[in-house]
């Protein structure tokens, strides 16, 4: 299936939010970032101000010189965040696969959703009009098979534009562009390339893979791919882990069962805390033991019911420990692993519902306290010497 990746970029986001609260700013040169006599840089500039050469990251003083009549605003971070969340909420109504890359731009994966929404262009129009209707802000959207091309496309489409790059037309879109338009190609690379006579993306592609590799090493390989419009469609917002593990190496090898069990209890506590932070449940529990001769054994047990509770995990870990350790061999390292991760089981329980719910609430409360005061602020008595 061909990937369908949107890059949605809010137009002059900070300035547009300011205009919502102060409509008289519309059409004026507006610069957000601070007052002109302050030290600091431009966070955002309206399209009017940009006509004078003002751009973000420019010192405020320079901006003032270029565009003396501009309205300078200090900026309201909380409002921007609020509107960013609103926009994200709308994105998520369309697809669950949304990666917010910054406060005002996101990648959306619409791969395989044609039957749900129709062609990419029509869903892009709906997305843009819903954002406008619900936030009063305008957004530009680039569509292609890769994140890189979509990002370039949304930039070309601005303001309030939609640009769909048809599959296999990536190179012809990118070719005439300045190399600096490629995401990830900064001033330094641009200068180096200019010295080589490379001005446009087409020039870059013409250099060929081998020369770029020779000149820039791995970065050259990456540049070559960028020039071809080849880039990932992979969404790394998938921060859901495949497994979670925690290990501990003893300061001195030990054969003291109490110390080993206590350490395991601490490791379980850490691992379960991370598991719950992802709102996940584990089905497989693994114990890792390394002895003084560096022999490593791992033993795993599968649960019928996935769990996220310290107690249930620790019971299994200790069972595995007693099955795989003679309490004599000195242990150098212990580890606990959780895998077979998934979201909350949907099937309800007939028995012990209350005690399960109570335990869940208890651990959630402990997690909250840890979130505020640090992991070691609260711990179960089992992990204390």
């Amino acid at each position, binding site marked *: 299936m061909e990937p369908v990746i949107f890059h949605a970029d809010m137009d002059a986001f900070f300035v547009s939010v300011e205009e919502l609260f102060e409509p008289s700013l519309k059409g004026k040169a507006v610069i957000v970032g601070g007052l002109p006599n302050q030290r600091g840089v431009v966070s955002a500039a309206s399209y009017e101000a940009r006509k004078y050469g003002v751009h973000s990251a420019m010192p405020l003083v320079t901006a003032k010189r270029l565009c003396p009549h501009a309205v300078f605003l200090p900026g309201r971070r909380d409002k921007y965040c609020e509107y960013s969340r609103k926009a994200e909420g709308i994105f998520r109504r369309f697809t669950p696969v949304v990666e917010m890359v910054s406060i005002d731009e996101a990648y959306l994966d619409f791969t395989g959703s044609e039957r749900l929404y129709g062609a990419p262009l029509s869903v892009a129009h709906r997305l843009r009009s819903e954002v406008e209707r619900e936030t009063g802000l305008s957004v530009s959207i680039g569509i292609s098979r890769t994140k890189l091309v979509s990002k370039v496309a949304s930039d070309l489409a601005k303001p309030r534009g939609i640009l769909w790059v048809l599959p296999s037309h990536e190179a012809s879109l990118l070719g005439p562009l300045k190399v600096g338009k490629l995401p990830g190609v900064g001033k330094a690379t641009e200068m180096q390339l200019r010295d080589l006579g490379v001005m446009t993306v087409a020039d870059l592609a013409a250099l060929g893979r081998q020369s770029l590799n020779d000149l820039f090493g791995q970065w050259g390989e990456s540049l070559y791919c960028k020039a071809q419009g080849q880039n990932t469609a992979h969404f790394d917002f998938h921060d859901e882990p495949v497994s979670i593990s925690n290990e501990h190496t003893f300061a001195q090898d030990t054969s003291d069962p109490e110390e080993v069990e206590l350490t395991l209890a601490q490791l379980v506590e850490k691992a379960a805390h991370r598991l719950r932070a992802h709102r996940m449940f584990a089905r497989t529990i693994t114990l890792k033991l390394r002895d003084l001769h560096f022999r490593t054994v791992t033993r795993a047990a599968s649960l*019928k019911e996935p769990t996220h509770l310290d107690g249930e995990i620790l019971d299994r870990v200790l069972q595995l420990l007693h099955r795989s350790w003679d309490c004599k061999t000195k242990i150098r390292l212990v580890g606990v692993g959780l895998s077979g991760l998934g979201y*909350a089981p949907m*099937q309800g329980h*007939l*028995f012990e519902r209350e005690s399960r719910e109570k335990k869940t609430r208890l651990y959630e409360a402990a997690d909250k306290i840890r979130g505020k005061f640090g992991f070691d602020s609260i711990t179960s008595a089992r992990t204390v010497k």
Partner: protein
Amino acid sequence: MELTVRKFDILREVGLTQGVIEKKNTIPILANLLMDAQGDSVQLSATDLELGIKCSCPAKIKKPGAITTPAKSFLEIIRELPDADIRIRTLENNWVQINCASASFKIVGLPKDNFPILADLTQSLVEIPARPLLSLINKTIFAIATEESRYTFNGALLLLKPLSVTMVATDGHRLAHIEKQIPLDPLNTELRTLIPKKALAELQRLLAEADEKDVVSFGKDENHLFFRLKNRLMISRMLTGQFPNHEAVLPKDNNRSVVLNREDIRSAIRRVSLLADDKSRSIRILLANNQLEVSSNNADLGEAKEVLETSYDGEPVHIGFNCQYLLDFITATEDTKISFDFKDDQSAGQMRPATEEEFRYRYIVMPMRL
């Protein structure tokens, strides 16, 4: 040992012992069947140490004695023999010879000395009518957990009272509860017993051949349960542990009830479940406005929906279930009308036959989060 038996007499008994014999046992003798010829019958025994079966069939004993033979091969041979008298005798070095008409087999045996001694039913505590007992098992056994670390869920609870017999099984997500009013002789107290799933499955086979008037003698010693039906005795290791408090989960105020035609709801669920999520097997039930809607959706495949007309016009109920759990009950019950009783979308749903005649039968299922 030397004896002659009729093919069908011994075939039926040998067939009954097969379920007990462990296919992947590490102790070789447990793959064998013990034949013990005494008087005018031959007794057959098989065990996997958890469960044992003893049965017998009439035989002409020429020379009393005992031997064990590989159970699977022995059954296969008997089954293929012509319908005639079979002569079985031991030769030297534990060889066993089987002759029937013009066919002749020689198979390796093992001496009986290494075969475990199966406990005997010394005193029957109570006689349970066989047919009703079979119904009780058929209507609960499916709810027993197949794998569960808390192993008291691996069996069903048999509750014998002077005037009733009850069987309860659960896997923690659903519970089947069935009770029959029946005078039990001679019982003047309450008897609680946990029976392992494998023993129940074997009992099903034993009881399948029972007649209307047959009774099962039930007894126990410290470690074993005994069930005897005529010439057949089943011995099971006892399950120890606490069966969950099932009384507490039997719903009392599931007032949103709808009566459905068993065949209608069964085919609807079977159809809709074709597009249920592969992993969770969840389907939705929406009960409102004189309709019961069963629906499913599968992210990879699509969605399905079926509507049944009902007489229900109460508060709407929107609830999710594992479709297999519902089908298990609908398949087990024989009644043509089934009642679904709900409280709300969070609480356990109850299913039962709409009219109660022979049994009081209840099936409790926890919903799935939608």
